[in-house]
């Protein structure tokens, strides 16, 4: 087996990003995904400024009705407009998805990178720390957070981020351990390059692909964790909803009122599909070696 060849031609980060951007634009699925997510995010953001959209306005006598001209996505069992609830829910779910994923990616990558690169005793210690966090009971952790700090949306991000970074850290560490042994890194070290420079120039570009791919996998977990936290009283408070809580409620009555599950689940799935294609596109675009094809 011939040894893997190093990336040596990363002369300037500048052109790397530019090239990546050009490549990404050519990837139709990725572009379609990006456009879908952007449109959805915009619609959710502007929902409060649209007249007539209210997530809480009830019409008890109306009850759950199928999609119609008045209510495009139907109404729920309290007679609330499902489209409005979905758009308002998007604000919560998209922002949680974005923020908590970012938090977990940042922590996970940094932790995994340092642990794997420095290695030795620090690595062993760091990984045992991760093992401990894996084992601690999440429910009780969240209940405690709430008792001590009260209900707070920023804590929500921290609570989710605090548990979702562990897989990322282990994956990045695994990659870094392998990279470290490759010739180009050893050469760089032999040349006396500083750690910071090696990490920035050689390690990060090489783990970026897997980080992006795994980030897109964290998003759905984060969004559903939010629904679980709502169950604990920590997420959105009724009558507000998020996609996660809408899907949860919809799943209880989907045989009677299929639209209550179909639209939120559809929104959720399409968003994730889009993000995944965008993620794959980004990965491919940033894959320096493949670009030589």
């Amino acid at each position: 087996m011939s040894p893997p060849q190093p990336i040596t031609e990363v002369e300037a980060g500048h052109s790397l990003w530019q090239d990546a951007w050009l490549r990404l634009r050519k990837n139709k699925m990725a572009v379609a995904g990006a456009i879908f997510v952007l449109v959805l995010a915009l619609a959710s953001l502007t929902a409060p400024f649209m007249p007539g959209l209210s997530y809480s306005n009830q019409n008890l006598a109306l009850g759950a009705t199928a999609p119609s001209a008045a209510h495009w996505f139907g109404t729920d069992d309290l007679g609330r407009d499902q489209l409005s609830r979905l758009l308002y829910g998007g604000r919560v779910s998209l922002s949680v998805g974005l923020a908590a994923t970012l938090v977990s990616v940042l922590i996970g990558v940094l932790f995994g990178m340092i642990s794997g690169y420095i290695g030795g005793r620090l690595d062993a210690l760091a990984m045992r720390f991760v093992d401990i966090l894996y084992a601690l009971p999440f429910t009780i952790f969240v209940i405690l957070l709430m008792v001590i700090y009260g209900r707070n949306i920023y804590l929500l991000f921290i609570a989710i981020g605090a548990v979702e970074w562990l897989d990322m850290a282990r994956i990045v560490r695994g990659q870094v351990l392998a990279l470290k042994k490759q010739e180009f890194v050893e050469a760089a070290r032999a040349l006396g390059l500083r750690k910071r420079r090696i990490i920035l120039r050689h390690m990060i570009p090489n783990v970026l692909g897997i980080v992006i791919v795994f980030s897109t996998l964290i998003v759905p977990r984060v969004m559903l964790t939010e629904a679980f936290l709502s169950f604990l009283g920590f997420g959105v408070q009724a009558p507000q909803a998020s996609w996660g809580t809408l899907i949860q409620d919809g799943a209880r009555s989907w045989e009677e009122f299929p639209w209550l599950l179909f639209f939120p689940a559809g929104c959720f799935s399409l968003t994730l599909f889009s993000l995944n294609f965008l993620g794959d596109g980004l990965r491919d675009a940033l894959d320096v070696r493949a670009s030589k094809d």
Partner: protein
Amino acid sequence: MKPVAQISAWLLAAGVAGGLTTSCGPRETRVEWANRHQILLKGSGSEPKDLDPHVATGVTEHHIIMALLEGLVAEDPVDLHPVPGVAERWDISPDGKVYTFHLRANAKWSNGDPVTARDFFETYKRILTPTLASEYAYMHFVVKNAEAYNAGKLTDFAQVGYRVVDDHTLEITLENATPYFLPLLNHMSWFPVHLPTIAKYGPAYQRGSKWTRAGRFVGNGPFTLEKWRVNDVIIVKKSPTYWDQATVRLNEIRFYPIEDNNSEERAFRAGQLHVTETLPLAKIETYRRNRPDVFSFGPYLGTYFYRFNTTKPPLNDKRVRRALAIAIDRESLAANVTRGGQTPAYHFTPPGTAGYDCRTKLPADIAEARRLLAEAGYPNGKGFPRMELLFNTSEGHKAIAEALQQMWKRQLNIEVELVNEEWKVFLDSTQSLNYQIARGSWIADYVDPNSFLDMWLTGGGNNETGWANKEYDALIAAAASAPGPQQRLEFFQQAEALLLDEMPIIPIYFYTRVCLKRPELKGWHSTLLDNHPYKHVYLETTATTTNGHQ
């Protein structure tokens, strides 16, 4: 390992989604199989905490334990009135304080021992022993000195009102004449246990004796414990030693602890259960309309309500409490939100509880509510502080809370914030009065207004509103020692009128019980406590019985 290979093959086949047609065709459902063998398949809600009748507390446990044990009296399958059980007859003294039970000679434990008056005496001693810490010991407090013994103030059990006259005669002396005493005996806390068996597997007067396992359990009921797999199934078999085994027609009952009501409904639909514990909210309408043959609906002795924390402003003002309570459109809630045929509650004790119907009723008068609020200093909701409405997380509670929020906003112009908490946190919050308005519910332990009204006594463990009223306490005490049943109910009328005037709570609706029941299940009547004496239950298929539900 053969199953492994088989499953792998299935997995692959299902994954590729092809080539399965050979195994199609109508298979016999579990229910059809069970019908042939007189085996009742019952959804039983949650996994029982224990099958020791002195340690268990829930309704779920009670419904299993009543197959295994039988008390002095038993229940009529239609209206649950007391009928002879282990006691074949009983005498009541003229002052209503002394009951003498004559036990039948042929009552036997499942190990063949005769059931004697001494067994009951030892059982009652056990449940009242402080170290056992039975949570339902208070069901015995109507008996003379029982409370003192349970609290450890009295150490001589001979002074408690139980007396063994001879092997087959037991005498019980009460503190006061208690009209609901006989129905009370059908609660599991009055069922006998076989003490030698308990002692064999652990300390008899402490929790944690492992005698309730299959193969160990010794009971005197119509069924014996055959198998108990946690979170899977509990199987009981017809007992060969039961005195009335001629009446028992079922060979077996299987209790399935299916907590998720959607899963339970699916299992029923697929022909895996005869009767379910509940029915998902969304499915009620569908079944009521399309499957009246399996839709079962009846009253259930319980009240859904909200508590006010009466210790903090503005809810320490009874005008505010009344305004909030009156402004609710209960009819709309029942028709559009709860949708299970619940009766809107304009008072607290469910109508027809042991012959008691509350005379006083809350008005449905929005103008009155606005007037009261204005009188309390908040005209049109102006200046009313922001309030929190607390409920434990559940779809049903959320829907009601959301509807209330909207009603108060529309009718009184009051902003209320909804807060949901996980069950144990919620209990902690309500018990420590760390809330403003909180959801509550109460299911009666026995059919009597006392079970609903004595919880609002000053400092009562289940009061949890901070409400204290001397006059109310006096009325409940007067009812307990009332000379006759009519006077007794009159005291309850006055007490409840006072409760509704002071309004430490908001009654919302009276419970109903909705479940699915297959037509071949006979001898199963809708009862107030949802008890169904199993010895009268049987399965009878008719040719027209349809299968499943499309």
